[in-house]
């Protein structure tokens, strides 16, 4: 603990308290929305208007600005879900459990979007909607893992128990993440290799790369917004008998 500055520790301790979290995210939300809208506008303008057409794929490559950030988010959210689930499992922090389960539907949506946009992109480029190649298959399995998490959470009535079950399942499913990430390098398949996250220079032109990264950051903010909204609702639902919720509701009337 001595490595982390005191104000940071205090911030996290206060965030673990439900009323404080609820009030803080309420104030945070407009800022997140503004940043998200600005980033998305800039990213889409750069990607759809400023960036040149691809010399091979023409304009149809522009779906990359949705496809690639969604695919990144699908992995990123799973890791966030597993890590916060583990935190909830070890330290029994209620908010970590809520963050974990609130992430699952958002992550499932991003995985679905990545699959659908990839399929739409694959039709003109590869001539087929779907191939059973390593990356597509592993992404599909990721979607099933998300659905398993959501289904298991819904099947268990006691939500504290359900959170622990979901955390265990999410941690077991983490083995799939490196498989998806490296699938295009390990197996030489139809899906192209990575072009951005390479150690040396990215093999994508800067005028295309900047909008892509803008969109990636914008999607991160969208995830924060969607996840926090879900978390706030879930928190109210779980704490509906707590004093602070009753006071808040009676004051808002």
């Amino acid at each position, binding site marked *: 603990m001595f490595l982390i500055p005191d104000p940071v520790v205090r911030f996290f301790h206060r965030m673990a308290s439900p009323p404080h979290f609820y009030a803080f995210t309420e104030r945070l939300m407009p800022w997140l929305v503004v940043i998200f809208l600005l980033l998305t506008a800039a990213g889409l303008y750069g990607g759809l208007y400023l960036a040149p057409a691809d010399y091979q794929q023409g304009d149809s490559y522009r779906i990359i600005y949705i496809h690639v950030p969604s695919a990144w988010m699908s992995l990123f959210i799973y890791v966030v879900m597993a890590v916060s689930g583990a935190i909830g*499992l070890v330290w029994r922090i209620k908010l970590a459990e809520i963050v974990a389960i609130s992430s699952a539907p958002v992550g499932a949506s991003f995985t679905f979007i990545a699959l659908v946009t990839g399929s739409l992109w694959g039709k003109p480029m590869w001539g087929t909607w779907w191939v059973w190649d390593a990356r597509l*298959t592993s992404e599909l*399995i990721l979607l*099933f*893992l998300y*659905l*398993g998490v959501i*289904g*298991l959470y819904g*099947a*268990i009535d006691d939500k504290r*128990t359900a959170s*622990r*079950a979901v955390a*265990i*399942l999410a*941690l*077991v*499913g983490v083995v*799939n993440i490196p*498989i998806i990430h490296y699938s295009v390098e390990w197996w030489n398949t139809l899906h192209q290799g990575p072009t951005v996250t390479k150690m040396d220079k990215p093999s994508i032109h800067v005028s295309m790369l900047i909008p892509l990264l803008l969109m990636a950051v914008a999607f991160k903010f969208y995830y924060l917004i969607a996840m926090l909204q879900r978390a706030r609702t879930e928190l109210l639902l779980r704490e509906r008998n707590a004093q602070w919720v009753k006071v808040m509701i009676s004051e808002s009337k």
Partner: protein
Amino acid sequence: MSLSRAFFAVIRRDLVLALRRRSEIANPLLFFILVITLFPLGIGAQPHLLQAIAPGIIWVSALLAAMLSLDSLFRSDFDDGSLEQILLSPHPTSVLVLAKIIAHWLVTGLPLLVVAPLLAVFLGMPNHALGILLLTLLLGTPVLSLIGAIGVALTVGLRRGGMILSLLVLPLYVPVLIFAGNAVQMAGSGLPVDAQINILISILLMALVLAPLPVASALKMSIN
């Protein structure tokens, strides 16, 4: 009682119980045979087609049979309370749970190995691939029991855990299916399969070491 004695006592108890209720052994086996006989009826008895998809048929059927048998792993112990006794014992839960999984595999996984060559011949699989088929089943079915145990442990407390169990377990079975099916396919064409076998061995070892831990914590969660 020492840990190793407790370990073997759990295995022996589960084996005795299974022998007294033989349907637990027979059901997955019959299911396995029935599913495989459905394929030639469903897609037509063309020898070349059957031969080409035989490894996939056998492995998918083994997967389904393994999943169907999972429910018996903790169900009766959960109902009569002996699962709580295992959790209360001074020995580490994960080790005792591993004993239960091994006993379960001996009862439901091992019989599949005995009938698989016969069914492979039915489907017209070349003889030189039979050895590899048996090897992949020997390495793969314990992984199915180990991974499946995680899913059962998570859902044993639920009244209707059956549907959700398949959603939890089948995605995690996919790597085994891919490498095992691929190995048998390659062996049928006379190609070397060392790489796939090595990967299956590593999956088995990792599952043996790692799977009992989430099973133990999931059981504690299901019981509480």
